[in-house]
């Protein structure tokens, strides 16, 4: 496993990139939600990530633990809907697991991400193939872990995570939704990508971009 460390600033850059991507893809995310949900996923994520970037710019957190806690709390308190508690809990748990440190190594980052995912599972009880953001998140973390464990670079591991998230996102199209609003549609949800999996894929697109070359 790579011994490269990840700084607080890099993590801020990740969040910043994620914020840029959801803003750029706002209509796309909302259109996905219009097809099988209630047409607000893009505006929800943009509202949340804009608030996050404002919060951490106004009062830059001094530890990684604090950073993720501020991110999580800001998402919880500004997003609402399903994605607010899910993304919020994800980052809150990452914060608790990261602790009051100023850098993380790959293994520690993986641990924090996994803790975040456990938070998502605790909140939303998604199972694999329920057609939720979990179907992008779980494969992404799985790919990230395998790559790191195979002693690939952080950059390669992040790329693997990005790819897995994108594959996971695309694979939601053929699933019947069993969680969230889309589940009301039953069979009619087939053929549409899950909006949350698409925003999660953006999270890992931002991830790969920031850690490329590391």
């Amino acid at each position, binding site marked *: 496993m790579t011994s490269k460390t990840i700084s607080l600033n890099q993590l801020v850059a990740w969040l910043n990139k994620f914020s840029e991507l959801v803003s750029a893809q706002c209509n796309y995310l*909302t259109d996905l939600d*219009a*097809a*099988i*949900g*209630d*047409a*607000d996923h893009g*505006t*929800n994520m943009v*509202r949340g990530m804009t608030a996050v970037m404002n919060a951490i710019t106004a009062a830059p957190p001094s530890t990684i633990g604090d950073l993720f806690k501020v991110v999580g709390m800001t998402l*919880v*308190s*500004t*997003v*609402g*809907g*399903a*994605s*607010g*508690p*899910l993304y919020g809990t994800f980052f809150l748990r990452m914060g608790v697991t990261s602790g009051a440190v100023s850098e993380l190594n790959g293994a520690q980052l993986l641990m924090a991400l996994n803790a975040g995912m456990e938070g998502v599972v605790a*909140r*939303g009880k998604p199972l694999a193939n329920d057609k939720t953001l979990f179907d992008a998140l779980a494969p992404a973390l799985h790919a990230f872990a395998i790559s790191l464990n195979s002693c690939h670079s952080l950059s390669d591991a992040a790329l693997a995570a990005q790819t897995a998230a994108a594959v996971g996102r695309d694979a939601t199209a053929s699933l*019947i*939704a*069993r*969680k*969230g*609003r889309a*589940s*009301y*549609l*039953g069979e*009619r949800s087939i053929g549409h990508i899950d909006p949350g999996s698409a925003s999660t894929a953006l999270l890992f697109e931002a991830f790969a971009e920031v850690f490329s070359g590391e």
Partner: protein
Amino acid sequence: MKKLINAPDNLVADALLGLAEATTELQIDHKNRIIYRAEPKQKGKVALISGGGSGHEPLHGGYVGLGMLDAACAGEVFTSPTPDQMLAATKQVDTAAGVLYIVKNYTGDIMNFEMAAELATSETGINVLSVVTNDDVAVQDSLYTAGRRGVGVTVLLEKIVGAAAEEGQDLSTLSTLARDINNNGRSMGIALTSCTVPAVGKPTFDLPDNEMEIGIGIHGEPGRHRLPLGTAREIAEQLVEPILADFNFTSRPVIVMLNGMGASPLIELYLMYGEVAKILKRSGINVARNLIGNYITALDMAGCSVTLLSVDDQMIKLWDAPVKTLGLRWGI
């Protein structure tokens, strides 16, 4: 998109400003988007909080007042409010008798209210119970979905449980009553047109001129299936039959709500009520009380929903008790 708004992003904030001007009986925390009674409940009585995405007016802000809710948390359009809002409301309205959350069954609402209850318990020690409404028969109640949506029964529940809270019933009794009401209520809705979410600017779904969407929720979610546009009589069948197939409403009197989705005029709702009443009569169902109008809406969707609630004498008594809110008022 043609709406009486200033800008899509300001809709909720501006509507709350209007609500604040509408009556001195409400007090509005604009920062937290919470609607309170101006005159708080007497000490020792359980407080009721509800909330959800905006766009369903008068639900929930229009149901804050004597005999109904103590506070309503307003989310963005069709987006659950956040735990912070619910926590702030909880601290504000608790009179030391505990707080009941009335939550419509949507993943977002459930999770946000859950987080609020966790925070309330750990931060304040206030006794919080939650009741979840899930009365929409359009959705299969199976392990393979998020479960039935909470729709029309929420209105009836807020009224009846609100009256019981005003009587001074305790938290666990109220929570049992609320659950009992939810278990005895069923709803079903149809849309003639999609609504348009202001931030999106175009209809959520396309519905051809000769089709209607059966089994819609209150968020512009597509329904279960489409049918050729029917007559009011056929639509009434489409609404009432699945409700009656799901629950036996012949054993006790019922409260019926014929609810407009926001853009269907009252003359059509009166007419629809007549068609629904005919089917109920034919099915041996005894209507004790009714409501006809826009009570739980989906922005500018044209269409309607039917809610039936099987009630006992006590519930009817509580239904008839005085209520003074923007959305429902009688006896005072």
